[in-house]
């Protein structure tokens, strides 16, 4: 219901804008360029808001777990603490080490942030609401994974460019960890793609429509893939128990040791943007994306966008809970776990999913 | 000025340029990894050719053999990079040399 209401409003706005463009004689190419710019602005604003929210939540959740209150002073229940910190970071001095490679030191964080935000263009926010529909046609999931592996290059460039042993070690750890866990993550995604029969995120969401039981999390043959995805995506977002790239008791703070001011801000923003995109992808792959849990009931009155956000936030809160509960792994344990534990599990997951799809349990797979 | 629409020739000329830069890198770079970079560039120019032929010379219904070949080339390039880097690392560890000009133990 509400889905259709939102869609109708969007359609009205679109038709109005198109008529206006025709009236002013603007060629359609520029209209589509303007649409791209609008989508870009929407994504950037959304990412920044979500980062603010996530940082606030992180502080509150950690406070709750450690039996304290968290930020309370600035604004009601500390709500304005994070925006104030953002302002503070903007005014800080940008320090570049004397022997650092100036160009690489600058490119690293900017590249990291840009790539992390670029992943949002293929997220289906609601029925038919994707920023880059052309790209999502057939490669949505693959593109998100590709961009997430590109983010690694920002870390490497920044870590090497800082000319600091902690930075370099942190960057190398990050590379080793993320390449290893990316394999596991891709194996988990292959299962979902086999189930849905498409690489498009919109099609994967549509495959889980109809009822709550159609969600991949409630299909028993997807459970190995789900386990794999949960572990590998936690490692991919570099959070405890997988935060050895910036383990502060060993490496000061890893690859961003030598960063301050806005460059550090880019790393920070990029990291939370990446965390959020991983949560969104997890929602789309396993929790039905923008679908409401009980279609045909009163839950339909909540727009799909809200459902997507709520599910993603739930995932983020769970990762925070994990972060403040578990200890950190050692480097060799981490690598062994990836290659000797998760990758074989990935093959098992593909086998199970393939059997289920071949036996007709799955959706449009084969 | 009216330029001809972007067609096969544009992509082929571009790929020739990339190939020549790759060749030049292989010939002139002294660092062993620089040579590897040049080879990657040449492989990529071949890929552009394959995809361009598949795109511009195929009838309306898609014939994608060129893209399949490009996929194979990418897979083989990954193998080549892994083995090449392993050899370079091994060589560096034994001789602490990365310049190919200094690798002259077997030179007559």
């Amino acid at each position, binding site marked *: 219901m509400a889905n259709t209401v939102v869609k109708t409003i969007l359609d009205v706005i679109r038709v109005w804008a198109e008529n206006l463009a025709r009236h002013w004689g603007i060629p359609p190419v520029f209209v589509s360029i303007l649409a791209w710019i609008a989508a870009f602005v929407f994504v950037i604003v959304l990412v920044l808001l979500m980062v603010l929210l996530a940082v606030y939540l992180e502080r509150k959740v950690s406070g709750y777990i450690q039996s304290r209150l968290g930020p309370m002073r600035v604004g009601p229940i500390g709500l304005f603490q994070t925006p104030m910190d953002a302002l503070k970071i903007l005014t800080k001095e940008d320090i570049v080490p004397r022997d650092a490679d100036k160009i*690489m030191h600058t490119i690293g964080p900017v590249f990291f942030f840009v790539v992390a935000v670029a992943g949002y263009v293929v997220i289906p926010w609601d029925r038919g609401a994707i920023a880059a529909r052309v790209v999502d046609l*057939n*490669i949505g999931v693959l*593109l998100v994974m*590709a961009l997430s*592996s*590109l983010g690694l*290059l920002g870390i490497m*460039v920044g870590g*090497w460019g800082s000319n600091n*042993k902690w930075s*370099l070690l942190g960057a*190398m750890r990050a*590379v080793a960890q993320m*390449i290893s866990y990316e394999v596991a993550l891709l194996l988990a995604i292959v299962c979902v793609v086999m189930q849905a029969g498409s*690489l498009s995120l919109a099609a994967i969401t549509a495959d889980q429509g109809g009822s709550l039981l159609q969600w991949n999390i409630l299909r028993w043959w997807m459970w190995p893939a789900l386990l794999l995805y949960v572990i590998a995506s936690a490692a991919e977002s570099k959070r405890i128990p997988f935060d050895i790239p910036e383990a502060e008791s060993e490496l000061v703070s890893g690859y961003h040791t030598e960063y301050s001011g806005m460059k550090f801000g880019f790393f920070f923003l990029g990291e939370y943007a990446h965390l959020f995109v991983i949560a969104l992808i997890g929602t789309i792959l396993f929790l039905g994306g923008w679908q409401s849990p009980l279609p045909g009931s009163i839950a339909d009155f909540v727009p799909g966008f809200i459902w997507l956000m709520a599910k993603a936030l739930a995932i983020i809160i769970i990762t925070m809970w994990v972060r403040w509960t578990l200890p950190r792994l050692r480097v060799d344990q981490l690598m062994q776990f990836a290659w000797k534990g998760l990758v074989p599990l990935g093959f098992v997951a593909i086998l199970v999913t393939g059997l289920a799809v071949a036996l007709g349990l799955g959706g449009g797979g084969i | 000025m009216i330029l001809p629409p*972007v*067609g*096969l*020739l*544009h992509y*082929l000329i*571009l790929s020739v*340029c990339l*190939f*020549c*830069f790759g*060749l*030049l*890198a292989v*010939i*002139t*770079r002294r*660092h062993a990894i*620089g040579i590897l*970079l*040049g080879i*990657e*560039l040449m492989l*990529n120019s071949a890929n552009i050719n394959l995809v361009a032929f598949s*795109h*511009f*010379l195929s*009838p309306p*219904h*898609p014939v*994608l*053999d060129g*893209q*399949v070949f490009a996929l194979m080339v990418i897979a083989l390039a*990954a193998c080549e*990079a*892994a*083995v090449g*880097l*392993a050899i*370079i*690392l091994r060589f*560096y*560890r034994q001789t602490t040399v990365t310049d190919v000009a200094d690798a002259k133990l077997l030179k007559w």
Partner: protein
Amino acid sequence: MTWADWFDQLAFFVVAGITIVAAAGVVFVPRIIHACLCLLVALIGIAGLYGLMAAHLLLAIQLLVYAGGIAVLILFAIMLLHRRSDGGILGGTRNLIIGLPATVIVWFVVAAAVIFSKWHYLPGGGTVSPQADSNVRIIGELLLSRHLLAFELVSVVMLMALVGAIIIAREDRSTDSGQQVAGQQTGESGGNAQ
């Protein structure tokens, strides 16, 4: 010439320009790590070219395997070597004297061959087919039917390359592992000297 054509041309020339400049950087930039970053930019530009040719699957694979895999691998190897490179092309002047004319000749020969060949354009080539959506499915079917043998052979080659790379790069535990570790540690603490 419509606006859409103009936009197509603009997109092609911008992406192609970035790619060529980056490729030139691979040759002429002195430090090897910067050359590797130039290669990365060229790879991303080539992914953009695939996008312009409606090869969306290849775009994603190029970013995932080339930019996110091979370029990362090469950067990682450079970090392990942690040695300053000699001036890229300046060190090899002799090679440049031979190499530059040879390359220019190659460029002219191949470019002439490309320009003066008669290409058999089929009707409809160069247009994006309406069912571009099913590219992935078609490529998958081709891989498992007409090109099955090549596909399987590639997988065997990849396995061999994997095992071979591990065996080649593995340290000799029997001989001088103690020295190796000590050397690495001192290398790391003084590493990245620029």
